[in-house]
């Protein structure tokens, strides 16, 4: 991200600075190293070596759906299965102790990655969806009353929408939506009009999985704080693409998935502020989340285990820890710059083609997602045609139907980048889009 390219709402130099700090980690200490080169790490990702069909190499541009997995993560998962496939916490034998140390060690890695105050603030879940639902079913059901309000944005993923709608239905809570500005970034004025003293929760994405734009969370935090609302951030896209510092951002809850950040499927994280988590009732009951059970009832375990009933996703948590290690080795400001430059290049090439309409707001800070429509070609047909050339993109509504309704679009196509994507991938995308146009335009 070159310093000239700040989003329009980042007018305040201070905010800008904070944003960069919290999103980009050690951005202050600009690294003298050579520019991060995606070519150098492609060998880490075995899927990149595969051919989609004989002679057709994979060009994977569906990273917002899930990322590819590098060898260190694959090996970490396998190490559990091969070397110490034991249950955690309750065993005194060596394998169980090794498994417990690895599982809790992964929690520690994630706590440090997010700069959480303590490991107790890191709850392992199945993924972002699970994390958000945990907040809805625990904090939400215990706290919200009829007439309370939840403020979302117009660009939320179903994962940060449906749980609140279900809760609203149960509790008589009102859901409000902050609208998009004409350039399809979040309209902070609309946000200001929707937030009020009845707003008990602001739940918002830090990066849109459709538009790719980054929401200025510190702007949101400030507003949530002055309204006295709790702030939940859907960081499913943000954590893989930015450096997140939960204390600098001052958020209450942050949810993300392992599988979008080089980790395994089946694992995710809910970061929660300890003071809130302490008060919250558990949702799922069972082993490990109790200190005492008798026929009459149970006493809850301390954090984080109060929210981790039963055998947890052990191998997957360990894999996520390995993913955090893997990602942490790179100069992250340069990775951010890479994603940004891939989107810029795609913007430039796709706009030049004609008949292609970009949804992604132009010239915004972007975490590596570009969405578009092509005249006369349905996005699903487009995805299928591209697939025959090995180019994997996604088509549809990307689990963001209300956003598509707002934009008046039935479906869109989306290319999304990650740290192993090269500029040539964008060039092939552009070429294959023209090819698809030819198929459909030939009459």
């Amino acid at each position, binding site marked *: 991200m070159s310093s000239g390219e700040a989003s329009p709402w980042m007018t305040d130099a201070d905010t800008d600075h904070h944003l960069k700090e919290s999103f980009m980690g050690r951005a202050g200490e600009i690294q003298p190293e050579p520019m991060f080169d995606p070519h150098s790490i492609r060998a880490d990702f075995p899927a990149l070596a595969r051919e989609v069909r004989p002679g057709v190499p994979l060009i994977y541009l569906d990273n917002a759906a899930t990322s590819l997995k590098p060898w260190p993560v694959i090996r970490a998962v396998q190490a559990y299965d091969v070397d110490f496939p034991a249950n955690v916490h309750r065993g005194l034998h060596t394998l169980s102790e090794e498994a417990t140390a690895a599982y809790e060690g992964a929690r520690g890695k994630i706590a440090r990655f997010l700069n959480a105050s303590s490991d107790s603030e890191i709850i392992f879940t199945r993924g972002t969806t699970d994390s958000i639902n945990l907040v809805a079913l625990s904090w939400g059901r215990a706290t919200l009353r009829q007439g309370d309000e939840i403020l979302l944005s117009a660009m939320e993923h179903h994962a940060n929408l449906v749980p609140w709608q279900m809760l609203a239905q149960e509790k008589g809570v009102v859901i409000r939506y902050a609208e998009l500005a004409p350039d399809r970034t979040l309209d902070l004025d609309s946000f200001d009009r929707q937030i009020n003293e009845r707003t008990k929760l602001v739940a918002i994405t830090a990066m849109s999985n459709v538009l790719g734009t980054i929401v200025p969370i510190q702007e949101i935090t400030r507003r949530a704080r002055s309204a006295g609302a709790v702030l939940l951030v859907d960081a499913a896209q943000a954590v893989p693409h930015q450096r997140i510092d939960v204390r600098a951002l001052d958020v209450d809850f942050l949810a993300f998935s392992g599988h979008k950040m080089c980790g395994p499927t089946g694992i995710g994280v809910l970061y929660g502020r300890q003071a809130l988590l302490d008060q919250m009732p558990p949702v799922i009951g069972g082993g490990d989340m109790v200190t005492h059970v008798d026929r009459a009832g149970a006493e809850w375990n301390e954090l984080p285990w109060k929210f981790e009933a039963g055998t947890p996703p052990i191998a997957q948590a360990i894999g996520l820890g390995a993913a955090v290690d893997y990602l942490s080795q790179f100069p992250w400001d340069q990775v951010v710059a890479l994603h940004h430059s891939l989107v810029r290049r795609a913007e430039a090439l796709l706009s030049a083609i004609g008949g292609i309409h970009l949804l992604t707001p132009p010239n915004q800070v972007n975490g590596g997602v570009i969405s578009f429509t092509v005249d*006369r070609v*349905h996005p*699903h*047909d487009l995805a*299928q*045609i591209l697939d*025959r050339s090995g180019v994997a993109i996604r*088509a*549809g*509504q990307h689990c963001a*139907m209300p956003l598509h309704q707002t934009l008046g679009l*039935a*479906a869109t196509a989306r290319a999304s980048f990650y740290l192993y994507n090269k500029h040539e991938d964008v060039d092939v995308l552009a070429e294959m889009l023209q090819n698809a146009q030819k*198929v*459909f335009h*030939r*009459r």
Partner: protein
Amino acid sequence: MDDFYREEILDHYFGSSQRGRLDHPSLSADGTNPLCGDAIHIDLAVDEQGTISAARFDGAGCAISQAAASMLTEYLEGRTTDEARAVSAEEMLKMLKIPFTPARLKCALLGWKTVQKALTPKAEPDQPAANS
């Protein structure tokens, strides 16, 4: 060139004479593909002998779903409702002559399912498609 998007499919997709609505359909139905939200509307005019005198489709969707609906409605005109009901999913796929992946199967059969729905005697009152 492209066995999926060959001439015939694209002709049906772009220039179908079957596309549209009937003013006074005897039967009609709406169908949605839950995977993508695409929707198809089917109108059938049936005469007293039970012959389908006109069949039309309307909607927005991928080339496969639209071409399939076009081919099917074309095929149905002049046939009886009994014959229409007897058209199997396999016959529908044969008309399209496309190698199907599971995801595209739903596209291919959207129109066919909607026709079957229109032909079902106790069809509920039509509801607007959820996401059109």
